[in-house]
């Protein structure tokens, strides 16, 4: 295609080019000829990329895209969210539950900056997103124009990569690259900044089938020598432990991991993001580790002689004081990101690769092991401090999470918010499938759950597992506006609000570490009536104040299929999340619920 000359000869009369390019599109656009406006190229590129759903919010800089969307009726669905942050979280929920790349489309300036929290969240949790932000026309960039913001600059340290489109002829290939970078290797968010004039200018449309970016590559298989060494280390170990992170789920390695763990009789602990990668109802599962991990998982970590880290990054919420963590363990570390390996704890056996492929390479090299003594020891720790809670007639959040588990048998996608609700959701629901536990782990974004749950439900397109959104009374209000969107689309979300009238996790720290000075964590005077709020958004609102009503409330919620149900549980404010490794303490300094009672 010789395109340059055509472009030069054609005047940039917008109406004319739009009309003619529409005609051209009808004739032969699909075979790669004809001119299209940037806005059309954008839409056709997303279609060619196989995008199913776009979460967006229009505005001046992207009005051309929305206009073209109206005229062309694209194959993807566009969901009008009510706040751009909600849109990015919805795209994250969609991406995490389906494994596909999430798409967000917003306007310039405030539309773009409203996405920043969601982009940072996706960056921390390795979620593939492509965020298209409108931008002022190229000639106005840097001019402090209306709704201008240097989005590339703002998001530089929270994106895997970003693009500013400076030539409409590069638009399609840039979109292709953006999806490729976002979805491959260690996934992450990519921002594509679209100046308004790029959407109005015209170019021939050709969506590339392949991508080549000379500075971008990622590993696939692991080094065979290293994997052989790992197999030997596993054979020699007496007290081995799998430490499994979110990378396992991202790479689709849950199945092979489960096979290897069961074949070799090696117990498994997972991180917050690893929940679901190994069935928690398996006797080899010791649950979650870390700051609010189980007593027995953390005990196992402190005593293991071989830690097999799979797609995990040795986060500070996992390790506590790092110098004293897993003091006896040799470490095998499998990860796709070279910068993750030995970042926090040097590995004895680093294996760079896609953990699914690495585990598949490892599988034929391992033998069944006799870990009876080790498992007996772990069972002793399990009985020492099981995951349980008081039943004294007060409404406790743990009992609600357990009831939700029993209602669904663990066959549900649970999307938690951040804080106490997140930890109880992680501790007391039993996760048995990958991609059924979704949360904001790295950034810890309050207000994540509701829009992310909405994204999960959109991804399931009516089928799939029930979607439960677990919230506190603090976080749920941070993106409550999306409830209206979920209602409009008749999504049968089960929205749980554990209302203790406090910012519970901060209150817990204030109680334990700040002399019970509850500075600005009391929400009772600013909380709305959640039942009436739900009804105002067109949802069903239910309230439960006593433990004996939990079951009836949940049963009633499960009878609703055509709209979201908001269940407000008035839980006691005194309940705290245990066990707990205080921030910066060693894992051996774990506080348990029973110790707390004695004090």
């Amino acid at each position, binding site marked *: 295609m010789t395109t340059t000359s055509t472009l030069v000869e054609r005047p940039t009369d917008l109406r004319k080019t739009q009309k003619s390019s529409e005609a051209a599109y009808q004739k032969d656009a699909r075979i790669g000829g004809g001119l299209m406006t940037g806005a059309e190229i954008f839409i056709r590129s997303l279609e060619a990329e196989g995008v199913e759903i776009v979460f967006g919010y229009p505005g001046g800089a992207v009005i051309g895209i929305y206009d073209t969307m109206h005229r062309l009726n694209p194959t993807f669905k566009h969901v009008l969210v009510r706040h751009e942050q909600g849109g990015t979280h919805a795209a994250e929920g969609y991406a995490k539950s389906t494994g596909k790349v999430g798409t967000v489309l917003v306007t310039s300036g405030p539309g773009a900056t409203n996405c920043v929290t969601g982009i940072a969240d996706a960056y921390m949790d390795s979620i593939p997103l492509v965020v298209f932000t409108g931008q002022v026309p190229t000639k106005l960039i840097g001019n402090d124009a209306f709704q201008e913001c240097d989005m590339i600059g703002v998001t530089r340290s929270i994106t895997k990569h970003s693009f500013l489109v400076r030539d409409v002829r590069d638009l399609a290939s840039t979109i292709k690259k953006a999806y490729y970078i976002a979805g491959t290797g260690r996934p992450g968010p990519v921002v594509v900044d679209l100046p308004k004039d790029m959407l109005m200018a015209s170019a021939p449309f050709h969506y590339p089938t392949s991508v080549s970016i000379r*500075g971008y590559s990622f590993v696939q298989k692991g080094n065979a020598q290293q994997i052989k060494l790992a197999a030997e280390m596993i054979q020699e170990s007496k007290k081995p432990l799998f430490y499994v992170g979110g990378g396992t789920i991202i790479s689709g390695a849950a199945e092979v991991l489960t096979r290897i763990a069961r074949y070799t009789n090696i117990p498994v602990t997972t991180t917050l993001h690893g929940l679901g990668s190994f069935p928690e109802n398996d006797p080899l599962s010791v649950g979650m580790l870390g700051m609010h991990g189980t007593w027995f998982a953390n005990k196992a970590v402190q005593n293991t002689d071989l830690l097999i880290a799979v797609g995990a990054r040795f986060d500070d919420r996992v390790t506590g004081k790092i110098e004293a963590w897993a*003091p*006896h363990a040799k470490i095998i570390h499998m990860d796709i990101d070279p*910068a993750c390996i*030995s970042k926090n704890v*040097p590995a004895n056996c680093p294996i760079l690769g896609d953990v699914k492929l690495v585990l598949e390479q490892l599988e034929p090299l391992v033998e069944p092991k006799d870990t009876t003594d080790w498992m007996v020891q772990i069972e002793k720790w399990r009985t020492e401090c099981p995951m349980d809670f008081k039943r004294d007639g007060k409404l406790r959040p743990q009992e609600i999470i357990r009831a939700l588990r029993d209602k669904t048998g663990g066959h549900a996608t649970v999307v938690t918010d951040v804080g106490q609700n997140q930890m109880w959701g992680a501790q007391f629901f039993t996760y048995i499938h990958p991609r059924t536990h979704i949360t904001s782990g790295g950034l810890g974004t309050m207000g994540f759950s509701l829009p992310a749950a909405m994204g999960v439900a959109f991804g399931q397109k009516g089928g799939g597992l029930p979607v439960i959104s677990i919230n506190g009374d603090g976080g749920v209000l941070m993106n409550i506006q999306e409830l209206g969107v979920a209602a409009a689309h008749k999504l049968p979300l089960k929205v749980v609000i554990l209302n203790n009238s406090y910012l519970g996790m901060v209150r817990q720290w204030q109680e334990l570490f700040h002399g019970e000075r509850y500075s600005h964590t009391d929400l009772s005077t600013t909380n709305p009536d959640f039942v009436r709020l739900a009804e105002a958004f067109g949802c069903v609102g239910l309230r439960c104040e006593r433990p004996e009503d939990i079951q009836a409330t949940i049963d009633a919620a499960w009878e609703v299929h055509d709209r979201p149900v908001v269940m407000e549980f008035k839980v006691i404010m005194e309940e705290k999340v245990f066990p707990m490794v205080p921030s910066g303490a060693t894992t051996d300094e774990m506080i348990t619920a029973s110790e707390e009672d004695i004090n």
Partner: protein
Amino acid sequence: MQTQTAGMGLTPQQVFRKQAAGESIHPDGQDVLQRHVLTVLVENGLGALNRVANLFSQRGFHLESVSVGEAKDQSLRRMTLVTTGNDRMIGQVLRQLNNLVDTIEVEDVTHLDHIERELCLVQVRCSASERHVLIGVVDIFRATVVNITPDSLTFEVTGPPAKVNAFIGMMRDYDVLEVARSGRVAMRRELAFEH
């Protein structure tokens, strides 16, 4: 359980980890920080330079000097970065740099045979009567006079950073008005007959 990590009572695995990270195994010991010279080949354009520089502030790495210029391939730039850190930090710098989409090649040349050069301009207040003395010093460094006024001289000196340091040190006896250093540029040395 506290005793095993107290004082010198490190487990063998903890000793391994500290040594692998270049950290001292003694409780009061100093980490071994080393200066490293990295050469990075990046895509042309401000975006790429921005990303590399940003990475250092984002990740809390030290950055002593940066120099950038066109590489052989005109669509690329070669950057020379000088940074300090222990082995773990330098390993992180290299891997994080490699992770950037805009970097084509990242190399730590510190322990390889390499050439390092720096250019420096020094402006010194100097009356006509002092000139010959000053120029005598400057000749030893094979520096050149690039500007002259009735009461100042500007010199250009090129060489390894140690030579530039020495030159600036020698100038301290005079009234130095301004110093501009280019930062290091480095390149691996091809060897033909040395071994």
